[in-house]
């Protein structure tokens, strides 16, 4: 769960940057989402990430002559779910088209996609921006197959490329928005909201570092306050949200400068060059954009009957709003807690797993909102990859609830567990951190503290109740945090008050 904070004014120090430009960007997205089906879209090869190259391939996804694709029903249902959640129209009939182009990662020399009749058309997604709620309209949601992966040899002089086709045929949905965003903040809100929705829909694990979720941008600039769209540029090769934001800033600057110098923006596809921190024109222009789409004769029509559509809708996973309400009702959480915990599906799932292991929802919520979220953000890790598992967090809270450890020791145990991945109960055991509740043992520390702090004792006897806490602190220090504070308080009260 990586939440990016973005300061759009950070780079205005650049002297070549026009001061408070009268131009604003106009931004739309094409988002590719790899679906988390077990198998590919048109064959039964698995979609596992990171397997040895060319071991998840068969005659169909290798594009051998004479093979026939057969459509994965679940891929269609995932696309339907997504289209419904984005408020699209779902036409009753759609089909697949061939998009023809030559590239070595595409063994058939065409990609099976949807061009003339998509699974969803129109629709919208509401995003929360610093300027309030904004509605981003959708153009369409369509289903297609992913290409393979090209690998360029490390030797810069190598005169060949290498191809791994494990990914070829992985089901993809492409979500195409209208150009309804006008700042990096809008774009960030859109990306986060969409990723969150896809996670809630359980159609993709959205791991950007594995290419499961990929953003492509189209961007133009226009004078702020005007309606007419400028010439747009498409940008590819954006592999993180941070990169998208850098790219928006760069393209806005580049296009603004072109226009202010009396030039024109070319309609083209550009590539983000991470090393240069800039976009550059693609070189293979001569064959671009002549895809000669035509209906794929190997695949029959998809008929989304009203019954099927209703069944998919009825089985949509619990979405954010419903989960938030349930957290309030079922766990008795305050609205504030429920909102924070459901802001991200993986965080909500982590929390629910912890509550299942130790049913103290409010205490666990407090730990989530402070310690766990802080560590996830600082370490930029997903809850699933967090060293402390939900059962471990539950164990910490259980040990507090059972009086085995103090709240202060618990924080130390948490820090150690997060750092090392060790089991919290084992840390407490191995390092002798179990709270001492034996009154006789605690009394020894209390007596020592009283003997060593006559001035505090004086004040307490004079009725200064605040000093009691200071003396408790002295006892806790002596016990290295292990004395049960309740017993310490009782003993001090009995002896001095």
């Amino acid at each position, binding site marked *: 769960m990586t939440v990016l904070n973005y300061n759009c004014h950070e780079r205005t120090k650049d002297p070549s940057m026009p001061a408070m430009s009268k131009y604003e960007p106009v931004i739309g997205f094409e988002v*590719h989402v790899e679906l988390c*089906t*077990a*198998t590919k879209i048109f064959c*039964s*090869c*698995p979609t596992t990430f990171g397997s*040895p*190259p*060319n*071991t998840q*391939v*068969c*005659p169909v996804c290798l594009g051998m002559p004479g093979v026939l694709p*057969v*459509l*994965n*029903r*679940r*891929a269609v249902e995932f696309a339907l779910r997504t289209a419904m959640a984005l408020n699209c129209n779902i036409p009753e*009939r759609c089909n697949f088209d061939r*998009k*023809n*182009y*030559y*590239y*070595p*990662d*595409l063994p058939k020399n065409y*990609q099976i996609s949807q061009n003339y009749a998509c699974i969803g058309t129109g629709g919208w997604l509401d995003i929360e921006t610093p300027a309030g709620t904004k509605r981003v309209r959708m153009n369409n949601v369509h289903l*297609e*197959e*992913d*290409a393979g992966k*090209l690998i*360029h040899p490390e030797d810069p002089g190598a*005169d*060949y*490329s*290498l*191809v*791994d*086709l494990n990914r070829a045929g992985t089901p*993809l949905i492409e979500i195409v928005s209208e150009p309804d965003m006008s700042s990096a903040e809008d774009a960030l809100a859109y990306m986060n909201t969409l990723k969150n929705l896809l996670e809630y829909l359980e159609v993709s694990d959205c791991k950007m570092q594995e290419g499961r979720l990929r953003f492509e941008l189209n961007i133009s600039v226009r004078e702020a306050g005007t309606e007419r769209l400028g010439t747009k540029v498409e940008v590819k*090769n954006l592999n993180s949200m941070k990169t998208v934001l850098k790219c928006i800033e760069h393209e806005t600057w580049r296009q603004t400068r072109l226009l202010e110098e009396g030039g024109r923006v070319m309609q083209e596809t550009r*590539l983000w060059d991470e090393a240069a921190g800039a976009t550059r024109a*693609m*070189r*293979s222009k001569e*064959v671009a954009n*002549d*895809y*000669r789409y035509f*209906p*794929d*004769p190997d695949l*029959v*029509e*998809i*008929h989304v009957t009203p019954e099927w559509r209703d069944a998919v809708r009825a089985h949509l996973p619990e979405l954010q709003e419903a989960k938030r309400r349930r957290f309030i009702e079922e766990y008795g959480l305050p609205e504030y807690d429920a909102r924070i915990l459901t802001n991200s599906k993986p965080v909500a799932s982590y929390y629910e797993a912890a509550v299942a292991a130790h049913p103290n929802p409010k205490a666990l919520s407090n730990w989530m909102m402070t310690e766990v979220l802080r560590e996830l953000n600082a370490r930029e890790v997903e809850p699933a990859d967090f060293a402390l598992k939900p059962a471990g967090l539950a164990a910490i809270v259980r040990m507090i609830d059972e009086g085995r450890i103090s709240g202060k020791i618990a924080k130390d145990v948490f820090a150690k567990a997060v750092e090392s991945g060790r089991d919290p109960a084992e840390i407490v055991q191995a390092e002798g951190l179990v709270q001492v509740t034996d009154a006789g043992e605690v009394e020894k520390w209390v007596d020592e503290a009283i003997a060593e702090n006559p001035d505090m004792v004086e004040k307490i006897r004079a009725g200064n109740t605040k000093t009691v806490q200071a003396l408790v602190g002295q006892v806790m220090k002596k016990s290295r945090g292990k004395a049960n504070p309740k017993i310490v308080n009782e003993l001090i009260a009995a002896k001095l008050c």
Partner: protein
Amino acid sequence: MGQISEDQVRHVALLSRLELTEDDVRHFAHDLSSILGYVAKLDELDTSQIPPTSHSLRLENAFRDDEVGASLTNEQALANAPESEDGLFKVPPVIQDGGGA
């Protein structure tokens, strides 16, 4: 109807990665034009009352379940490859411009 110019032939040849001689270009412009002319006979039919279709088969919703089946081994997958390296297909160098997917 159906006149294919020599420029159109050159364009389609480029898209198809075919190398044609000027002789070929002239021949194909002629042949493709006559093929289109022949097929254009279909335009004489009145299809205004027939819904568009992408298929001759009256089939719909041919699906499979999302269950993993057998894949090829790496050796089988590469058996027809002219060249390979480390389990990968080896192809002429590609500039890093990304595909279309």
